[in-house]
């Protein structure tokens, strides 16, 4: 099973990596200065201390956990704590006064809520994540495009109106993106359930309870064994851009800045790329 799947999924992923990167290379310059300033602390330096609290979108769970560990290794007296959840929920928590040092959102809209409230300034985009169509390994609805088809298919070529489709609720970033691609594909009536986060969509695809689901590229990257994934042209219209910002009244501003810089550095970009994110 695993072997049969790995081929097509990887092929699709690589295909999309190439396509999507080309489509969105403009923001790369913004991040470069930040990366230069925020070089990790040198050896001999007393380093960073205390506790760092990072609020980050659920899709960043694996890669941020890894980056957090690296920062802790370089600064033995620092403890990094994460709160991973839907970006909207995190933004709401921040607005309600939740204590955080760094906020990393899965879209700019949720970061804008925090910015409008004066909680953060100057967010910087560090990654992009386009939508993919995830399909259970059995592909019960026959979503897979014919072998001989050349370029990236449109979403309407992949899914029929009567299949069972899971997407994120429009209230959360992945749902806002899903609504946009469905609208441009003329398929707004197809979804059967609006899930509260992208992981719930992925789970339902993995369980085979839906025929297909719209999830992030980074999600299928981590689940190549259990889902098939296909790129589609409309995905380029709604690529989620991930901004990160230091919270204004951060309890540990030095560590917060260091973490944001690590995310924006070449080291961070490599880790993000390894996790399936695209460079902005």
């Amino acid at each position: 099973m695993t072997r049969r799947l790995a081929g097509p999924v990887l092929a699709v992923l690589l295909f999309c990596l190439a396509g999507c990167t080309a489509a969105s290379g403009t923001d790369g310059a913004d991040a470069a200065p930040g990366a230069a300033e925020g070089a990790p602390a040198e050896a001999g330096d007393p380093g960073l201390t205390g506790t760092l609290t990072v609020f980050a979108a659920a899709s960043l769970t694996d890669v941020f956990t890894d980056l957090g560990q690296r920062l802790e290794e370089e600064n033995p007296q620092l403890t990094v704590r994460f709160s991973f959840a839907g970006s909207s929920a995190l933004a709401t928590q921040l607005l309600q006064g939740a204590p955080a040092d760094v906020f990393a959102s899965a879209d700019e809209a949720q970061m804008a809520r925090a910015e409008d409230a004066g909680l953060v300034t100057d967010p910087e985009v560090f990654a992009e994540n386009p939508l993919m169509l995830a399909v259970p390994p059995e592909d019960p609805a026959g979503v897979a495009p014919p072998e001989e088809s050349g370029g990236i298919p449109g979403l309407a070529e992949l899914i029929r109106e009567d299949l069972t489709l899971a997407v994120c609720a429009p209230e959360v970033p992945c749902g806002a993106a899903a609504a946009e691609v469905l609208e441009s594909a003329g398929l707004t009536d197809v979804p059967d359930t609006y899930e509260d986060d992208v992981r719930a969509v992925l789970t339902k695809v993995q369980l085979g309870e839906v025929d297909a689901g719209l999830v992030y590229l980074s999600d299928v990257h981590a689940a190549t064994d259990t889902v098939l994934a296909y790129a589609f042209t409309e995905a380029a219209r709604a690529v989620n851009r991930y901004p990160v910002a230091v919270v204004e009244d951060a309890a540990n501003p030095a560590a917060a800045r260091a973490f944001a810089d690590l995310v924006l550095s070449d080291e961070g970009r490599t880790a993000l790329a390894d996790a399936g994110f695209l460079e902005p």
Partner: protein
Amino acid sequence: MSARREGAGVPVPLMVPAALGVVFLVLPVVGLLVSTPWAQLGPRLAEPGVGEALRLSVVSATLATAVSLVLGVPLAWVLARSRLRGRSVLRALVTVPLVLPPVVGGVALFLVLGRQGLVGQWLDAAFGLTIPFTTTAVVIAETFVAMPFLVISVEGALRAADARFEDAAATLGADRWTTFRRVTLPLVAPGIAAGAVLCWARALGEFGATITFAGNFPGTTQTMPLAVYLALQRDPDAAIVLSLVLLAVSLATLLLLRDRWLGRV
């Protein structure tokens, strides 16, 4: 007069925690009322999604209660009256949904009734029936979570009821089924009513199992709690209004039923 005298006699070590308990339970509701955007209340309530979610919530909670009554009352009787072996094990199994996180309950329902599930697979193959993402799934999820409340309270009522009335009925020529219908059931009617209200309230507030097993689709599976949760992600004011509606409906229902059914308890 006598009630006042007893009230004055409550010992301080009981009075203080009791008062704190009341404050703890009532204060969040007060907070909800205080932060309600009253000026926007009218237009917000008129939004089409609100009525839809409310109607779906009330209908599905009522259906779940009906299913729980049909299955739960006989189950409670078996637990309270029969001499079946392994009854204590049975009781423990029946109350599992009480301690199970509802989200886990939703996943468990998938494993049985989902398209790939043990029973669901067969339903799909034989009848082309799929349950997830339908209103039926909402009712099933709510029933799964809420029925134990009914079973527990009806079983308690049955245990408290004097079984000798059933003996008396037997000496009057009533077989066990007749006795159940004409004596046992009316005797525990207040207990059943209380259990049904509890069950209904639990079903109305159900969130985890519903969003997991039934998904979230306006008009079909998006009940009030789901609408509240999602609204909270983007528009807390809308969430407060929705919560207020849910609160008003459940309070009104409880008061109404208390006067009609539970007043005699």
